[in-house]
């Protein structure tokens, strides 16, 4: 039986080994790389899912952690779904499978595709409409009082193999009990999946590892007009992401993310802005791409 690992031995008595094998630079470098702390740090860095947004990943020490719950809180329109979609895009680009629990049936596949996600690797689960009553569900799991989104989350996590699970609770103020939050966090930890909970306010309390708040900044620069008499373009908005709580790194950081709209859907521009009334003949219709 080995009571200690080589790395433990190197941490406790580094000089004794130096006496035996000499202290050449290569050996010292190897010792550093084998130290337990360095190993833990490197493992921690490896097990993070980045968003692909430089500044955001910087304040998150590389991204959200696998096996932990991260909360994205903000009002509707604050940009929380866009940030979550960037993580989903990053996960599918890595070849991982994503579960998206859509409690309000607001999942828009076209814009998730434009965010860069491979939808064939995104399992959509709508718990909002036609979901059966919790007490009639034969599939085991949470107690009967638990919410369908949390039941669905537990089923997905139990399946294993999902890289990311997004639990979109939308603007509903679901009261998640501490017991339910703890149970969810344990399920996330067991599955080693990254989990994002989207809500108007942090719901998981101490069970979440990371808590981000999103806020839309002013829309002063959100419009542009490419030509006189052309309709105004909504270019997007700026999202301020703040780290409220981070048990694995620094808290208090802030990142400004520019969220831009997908111009491809504006395939026809009516060139007479705000003067077209229903029933009127348009003053002139030109085919153009919005961008």
């Amino acid at each position, binding site marked *: 039986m080995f009571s200690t690992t080589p790395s433990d031995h190197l941490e406790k008595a580094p000089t004794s080994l130096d006496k035996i094998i000499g202290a050449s630079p290569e050996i010292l470098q190897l010792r550093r790389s084998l130290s337990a702390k360095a190993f833990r740090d490197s493992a921690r860095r490896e097990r993070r899912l980045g968003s692909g947004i430089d500044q955001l990943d910087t304040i998150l020490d590389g991204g959200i952690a696998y096996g932990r719950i991260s909360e994205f809180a903000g009002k509707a329109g604050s940009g929380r779904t866009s940030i979550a979609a960037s993580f989903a895009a990053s996960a599918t680009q890595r070849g991982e499978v994503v579960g998206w629990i859509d409690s309000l049936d607001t999942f828009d*596949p076209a814009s998730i595709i434009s965010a860069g996600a491979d939808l064939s690797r995104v399992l959509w689960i709508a718990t909002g409409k036609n979901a059966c009553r919790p007490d009639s569900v034969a599939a085991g799991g949470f107690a009967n009082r638990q919410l369908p989104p949390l039941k669905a989350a537990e089923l997905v996590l139990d399946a294993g193999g999902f890289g990311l699970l997004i639990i979109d609770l939308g603007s509903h103020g679901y009261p998640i009990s501490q017991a339910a939050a703890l149970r969810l966090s344990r399920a996330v930890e067991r599955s080693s999946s990254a989990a994002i909970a989207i809500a108007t306010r942090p719901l998981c309390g101490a069970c979440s590892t990371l808590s981000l708040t999103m806020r839309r900044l002013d829309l002063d620069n959100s419009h542009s007009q490419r030509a006189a008499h052309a309709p105004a373009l909504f270019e997007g908005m700026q999202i301020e992401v703040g780290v409220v709580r981070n048990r694995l790194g620094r808290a208090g950081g802030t990142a400004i993310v520019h969220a831009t709209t997908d111009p491809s859907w504006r395939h026809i521009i009516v060139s007479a802005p705000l003067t077209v009334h*229903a029933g009127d003949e348009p003053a002139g219709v030109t085919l153009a791409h919005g961008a």
Partner: protein
Amino acid sequence: MGRVACILVADFPLAAQLRANPALDGSPTVLADTPAPHAELIAVSARARSSGIKAGMTIAQARTRAPEMVVLARSAAAEKSAIDALADVAGSLSPVVEAGPPGCMWLDLAGMGAIHRDENELATELVRRARRVGLEVAVGVAANPEIARLAAGCSGVRIIAPGMENEFLNWLPLDLAMAADPDDDLLTALARLGIKRLGDLARLEPAAIGSRFGRRAAKLARLARGDGARPLAPRPHGEIYAEAVELDYGVDNLEALAFIMRPMIERIVNRLELRGLRGGDISITLGLDDHRIDSRRIAVAAASNDARAMLTLINLRLEAGVPGAAIESVQIEIEARNPRAAQAGLFAPPTPAPDSLELTLTRLSALCGTGNVGVLMPENSHRPEAIRLEAFDPAPGAPLPSDLPRHPGNVTQLVIRAIRPAMEIEVLCSRGAPEFVRGSNLGGRVISIAGPWRRDGEWWRPAGGFDRDYYELMLDDGGVYRAFCDRTSTRWYVDGIYD
């Protein structure tokens, strides 16, 4: 010399009924054509036999011996399900299976030696598997189907070793040999001549026996000589697994129906597992007491063998439209599907194992409804709300790329939260421009406007096309909404919020 196994169910009509009504297992049960007191018993259970009840008694006579006796009528549906289950038991071990008379199934054992240590182990496995589908069987193994059937008729597991067939036939009493189709007159006539075993009959000429005692005696004489070798006629494998139950009285509530359906589904799942298959789409046929048939088909998101999830799916479908009358018969059919297999890569990110994913999808469908789980894709249309649902079947992940694409700077794509269906709103305009918006859970002054962007199309469809002017409206409630004016009806709708 080939080897053949025979699976035999004693008192098959009664065994089929007990399989369909497992709650009666252990109680004195008899089978009769009608429940009238003078009706003769066709078969009796072991518990009833221990009370002194015998086949041939009338129900009234039997009731004097066991007042708590349960009288069952023959059920063609239950017998068919039991025959199919027996075929699945045989088919789970051998590819060549022939169905004999009801309750009898032969299987070819050629090549089975490589899988099973010996024939005794194989026969024991057959008994175990038959018990799993709710049937108690006897198994006989011999050189040809007829001798194997005679061996199975001796109850338990009987292996007739190669070359020992004549010894077995010589020993076999005539009443045992004719147990499947007894003929007391023939037995008495042969006994008068001192013929009590098959070996006694084998010493006589079959033609002479036939001319004196008839065709059945001649057949018995040929059997006694071991003339039963023939190749098996394979039974085709079924692709649909069905279980049916005929109820004594109408059931008019779904909770009681669920108690009836649950063992049926479990039996089908057991049969599917024996064949290494998974359950797919479900069809349920209910016979109502007003002579109507209520048929429903339930498409499942993924094949699985989770009986609880299947039952939940059926319950949800029945709750959506309750049958209009009491239910007198239930038939559940489940399509068989092959399980998926996938090879994961050592350096690829993990993906859900196919089996556990199928089970999860089924459970999620039971929780959320079948139309709410899968891959939501945009339709090939310019209507933003046009979406379709596809089955979730992710390919195994590829090895991780060394450098993942990154957004330049701090830019990401703005995502919209869809409002399905689009919510009608009231828009107050000033000089053609929206100025104030009011709707359900939505309202406020318009701070800024982008658009309009015109979208029209699908005018060629019978249902009519769409013709809309889209706007992006920023309201003072803090939201940026995507709204449109339907140019046909001049009504305003909001179909999403940027988030």
